[in-house]
């Protein structure tokens, strides 16, 4: 009996530990997901699958895709099969290939794999189901002049031209900063993130110089990468902590490049404590709602129209596995039916809004083109000679950050 007495407290402690460990993947603050309302149609509805890397309500990357899928459901009377948090940390026993098996069996005629992280899985799945059209969003496997062309006739790519959105984000930050110091909360380092971070820097420099009348060389632009698209405790850096470090180090605006909204949330808390700080979230049109008063605006993806187009092409048999790098609708970047990317102004912007609108108008008219030399890479090697314009390939595959930026261009 003494043994039992001794063992049970230990067991309870252990099991509590196990519980804590298992609890890691259960931490969504979601209210119950609404029932899918498949519109009543006489014909069999078009069925498509949507594989998300993060929670479908992350107020960021994954939610933007989820909303894109909802848009397709609405416009086509289609039916979406969705699964979120498909990554080895959240779902150790659910791989992209497994999910594709299930979705095909459920009748999916088109499948969206919506993360850079799903590359290996979706390439394998596309080979396993050569008759099922698939889209790997943000990828370059279907770009025949790209570096990673896979030549799979059923796997296309869609990505928004977020370079423009990030230029707007950088501009907003530069219009607002009082300390002349901006932090960029980066995810992992790859072609996409270098490209977008560089875009933000270019936008920031332009607006610091042209609207503030200040020397852009005096602008501090630091990048810190957490290691993944979102926080994985024990694996990535903690984005909240990184945001704190930026603010503690003198930055007063943090631009987020990650899938989730930690930068904005933290900025909101510090602002409530009396600090003058702001943030620019990313990905999802409604992201500012987390802390509206410190939000300078959000560059967001509007996947709906592109996804609808590809779904329609599958439905009418004209699908082609193409690489689409879709730009904004410059006549109205916030048109939900036509623009692949947009920028929602934030309350925090205040009087600076007029300048940002002017900047956006300049981008729209082509008057402002920031991909023009002279530009150097971070280590001083030339990227573009004076007057030289960057090609799509040069922009997509930037090997380094740009000169003047602080932070790592690749793994040390």
């Amino acid at each position, binding site marked *: 009996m003494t043994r039992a007495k001794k063992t049970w407290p230990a067991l309870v402690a252990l099991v509590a530990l196990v519980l804590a460990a298992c609890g890691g993947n259960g931490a969504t603050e979601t209210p119950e997901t609404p029932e899918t309302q498949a519109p009543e149609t006489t014909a069999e509805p078009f069925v498509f699958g949507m594989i998300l890397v993060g929670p479908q309500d992350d107020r960021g990357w994954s939610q933007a895709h989820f909303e894109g899928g909802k848009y397709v459901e609405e416009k086509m009377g289609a039916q979406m099969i969705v699964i979120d948090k498909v990554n080895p940390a959240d779902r150790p026993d659910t791989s992209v290939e497994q999910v594709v098996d299930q979705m095909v069996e459920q009748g999916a005629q088109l499948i969206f794999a919506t993360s850079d992280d799903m590359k290996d899985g979706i390439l394998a799945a596309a080979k396993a189901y050569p008759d099922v059209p698939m889209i790997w969003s943000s990828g370059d496997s279907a770009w025949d002049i790209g570096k990673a062309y896979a030549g799979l006739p059923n796997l296309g790519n869609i990505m928004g031209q977020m370079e423009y959105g990030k230029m707007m984000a950088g501009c907003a930050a530069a219009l607002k900063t009082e300390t002349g110091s901006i932090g960029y909360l980066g995810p992992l380092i790859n072609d996409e993130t270098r490209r977008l971070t560089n875009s933000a820097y270019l936008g920031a420099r332009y607006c610091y110089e042209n609207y503030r009348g200040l020397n852009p060389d005096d602008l501090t632009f630091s990048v810190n*990468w957490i290691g993944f698209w979102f926080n994985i405790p024990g694996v990535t850096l903690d984005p909240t902590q990184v945001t704190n470090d930026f603010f503690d180090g003198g930055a007063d605006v943090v631009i987020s490049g990650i899938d989730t909204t930690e930068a904005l949330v933290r900025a909101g808390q510090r602002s409530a404590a009396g600090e003058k700080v702001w943030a620019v979230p990313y990905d999802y049109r409604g992201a500012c709602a987390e802390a509206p008063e410190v939000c300078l605006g959000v560059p967001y993806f509007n996947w709906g129209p592109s996804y609808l187009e590809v779904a329609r092409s599958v439905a009418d048999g004209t699908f082609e596995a193409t690489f689409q790098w879709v730009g904004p609708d410059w006549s109205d970047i916030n048109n939900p039916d036509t623009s692949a990317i947009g920028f929602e102004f934030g309350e925090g912007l205040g009087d600076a809004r007029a300048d940002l609108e002017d900047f956006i108008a300049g981008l729209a008219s082509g008057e402002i083109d920031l991909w023009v030399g002279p530009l150097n890479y971070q280590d001083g090697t030339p990227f573009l000679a004076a007057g030289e314009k960057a090609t799509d390939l040069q922009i997509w595959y930037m090997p380094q950050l740009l000169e003047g930026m602080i932070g790592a261009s*690749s793994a040390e």
Partner: protein
Amino acid sequence: MKRALRAVPAVWSVLAALVVSVGLLALAGAPPFEALVLVLDGAVGDGGRMADTLMSWVPLTLASAGLVVTFVAGLWNIGVEGQVIAGAIGATWAARTIPGDGLVVIPAALAVGVVAGAVWALAAGVLKTRGGVNEIFGGLGLGFVAQSVATYLIIGPWKRAGIASTSGTEPFREEVWLPTVGGTRLSPVAVLLAVAVIFLVWALLRGTRFGLRLKAVGANPASARLLGVPTEATVLRAFALGGGLAGLAGAVLATGIQHKLVPAIAGGRGFLAILVVLLAAYRIVWVAPIALFFAILSVGSAQLQLRLDLDSSIGGVLQGILVLFVILIGGWQALYRRGEP
């Protein structure tokens, strides 16, 4: 009778957890029985799903079998997660470094995984026997170290060209993947390994001098020492064996499931193994079915979202309920026994 009673925690906990789960699913507005059937169907509904479930069962079973060995010796070896990661790191090193075809590289990768897991566990063992560090703290600490080493390797020396991401290493060349059958992801080698390990641990504990020593040390280390059992050597061997099996689990995960190293390669299986072994009351024959139950839950719960559009965390909630009932029913039993004359 005693035996049956000892098996009771598993059976009653699972039953009670199922009942509460049904209630919760109903509260969440889901058809509870349909949901449970879907989970089962999603895990064993056809050959491909059974294959996935078995492949989820293998590493959990291997890690649990290793834990049985150390638990029998009275060692709270809860650093299993770290030992699984160490095994995966070892196997990844072999798969990336050793030239040759699968016949050479795969056995080497599995062997290096076993050694790496054993070394990781032995570190906790030596910290205990020579450093006086309780194996719970040593094991947990070493687990964090293993996780950090894996992350460092993935983002550093083993990074993909031009990329710094904790997403994972480049996949291994296909010839060093564990071979699969029938167009599924089932690797017969992995399943055979798990079955063989169950049998070996069963035989070891049942019919060998080493097994007896383990039990003696587990029951009362002081008396065991007085009776001439080499306690320290037995403890360290138990750690090495337990860690080696956890390492094998990691090697299977790397070469047979992920085909690369990812930071979350262990995916909590080390912690889940603790639960499996507690439910099994340390008995190896129960490990196989209980691990299978968890594999079914883990693989099948994706259906809750795919088919019923339920929140994906429901699967985790079901697991949590189970854990609670293990504590509760175990606690009641302890109380009841104490009340006996």
